[in-house]
């Protein structure tokens, strides 16, 4: 998964969780809690949604990286690649 692909997925999931905010309008480095008024429940839902959609385990200790779109996309870019490499049936 490229950074751009991951970024698109993160933005889609934020839009699903909080239909009243516009994640496309903020910068990748901005804290979504400040810029979009998301709270801990929204971040919880975002991580759970990404976990379900990408079938990838996001450890709780890494949750802090998901408060920016860039941080979340970078984490997914890095770990989705590793996840796929580790999966024998990985197909493209």
């Amino acid at each position: 998964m490229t950074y751009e692909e991951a970024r698109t997925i993160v933005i889609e999931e934020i839009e699903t969780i909080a239909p009243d905010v516009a994640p496309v309008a903020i910068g990748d480095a901005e804290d979504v809690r400040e810029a979009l008024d998301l709270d801990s429940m929204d971040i919880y839902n975002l991580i759970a949604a990404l976990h379900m959609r990408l079938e990838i385990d996001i450890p709780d200790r890494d949750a802090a990286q998901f408060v920016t779109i860039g941080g979340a996309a970078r984490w997914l870019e890095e770990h989705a690649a590793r996840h796929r490499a580790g999966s024998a049936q990985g197909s493209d």
Partner: protein
Amino acid sequence: MGTFVMPSLGADMAAGTLVEWLKQPGDAVEQGDIIAVVETDKGAIEVEVFEKGHIGELLVEAGNVVPVGTPLARIDGSEMAGEQSSIRPAQPEIKTAAPRVAPARQLVFPRGTGQGPRASPAARKHAAELGIDLATVKGSGPDGAIQLVDVERAERMRPEAVSDPGPDLSAMRRAIAAAMSRSKREIPHYYLTHRFDLSATLGWLDHYNAERPPPGRLLLGALQLKAVAVALKEFSEFNGFYSKEGFAASPDVHLGTAVAIRGGGLAAPCIRHADTLTLSELMESLRGLVTRTRRGQFRSSEIADATATVSSLGDRGVESLLPVIYPPQVSIVGFGSVMQQPWAVEEGPVVCPVITASLAGDHRANDGHRGALLLRRIEQLLSEPDKL
């Protein structure tokens, strides 16, 4: 055979709009099934049924505003299903001795009363969806009856179509204003605050969450709700309702949970029997409730009157809050944000995550001495999260 009536979704509700039926005659229903959507000044509420059986007849069609207590549908009991299951092709006329009332925003009684503008069911439903007052629509049907095309024309002629997926903030603001004004006018509040170290709680939470996939994890909010619910069960003078007859303690704890709406507004839907739920059940309830509240969807069991309320500022708030009691309740517990602060322990000063819990009590029902014990009990419960 049971009757499903327009529920009272709050002490101040006189009537509600039946927006939509989610079940049809003949459908089997179980306790807890959502069978209709009702609109009140709190927003659209999904109404659950508390009987098992089959939907018999729908007595009120979608789009009508009816008073609390009006029969909306008959529920045929499972043992009566054999003789009652015949589904009638058309809805029966109801003979209701209704007073003459004006249409639209005022009370409209069930069909068959001959009141209000004549309109087809489809037109009525569509107008309700669009928020169009039928009294403003010119009908082109027989005898001037309003048809679907008339509503569609009225919609096109509106200066600007309003599309609002979230809760109605102006109605919510009015509801908050009414409840809080009454609270400050009638309730002699007293306030207590208590600051304590949350290291043990947060350490346990980190450990708990580290072992679980994201959907199984807990937020501090779930622990706070459980601790307050258990403590309220033990301090009954803080859990219940105050009325003209005085205070009546509730045997159950239905915990209102203040949920902030982005862009302004607040709702406090409740988690029923919160003291009996496990932490993961509470987390699941809280998650569903916050999500639905922010979309403007409530369930009737969540709107039913809470026995006390919790208001938590979350992780981007300030140190403490002094909350206002939601009448007819007699207490509300607040939690400020967790702050890293210097803290004195036996070995000397350290830096700890510290939280400030607060209590607003109604002096007509309880006192500060017991209030202080309640807050200390909450601290104790939170410091041993493995026992929650």
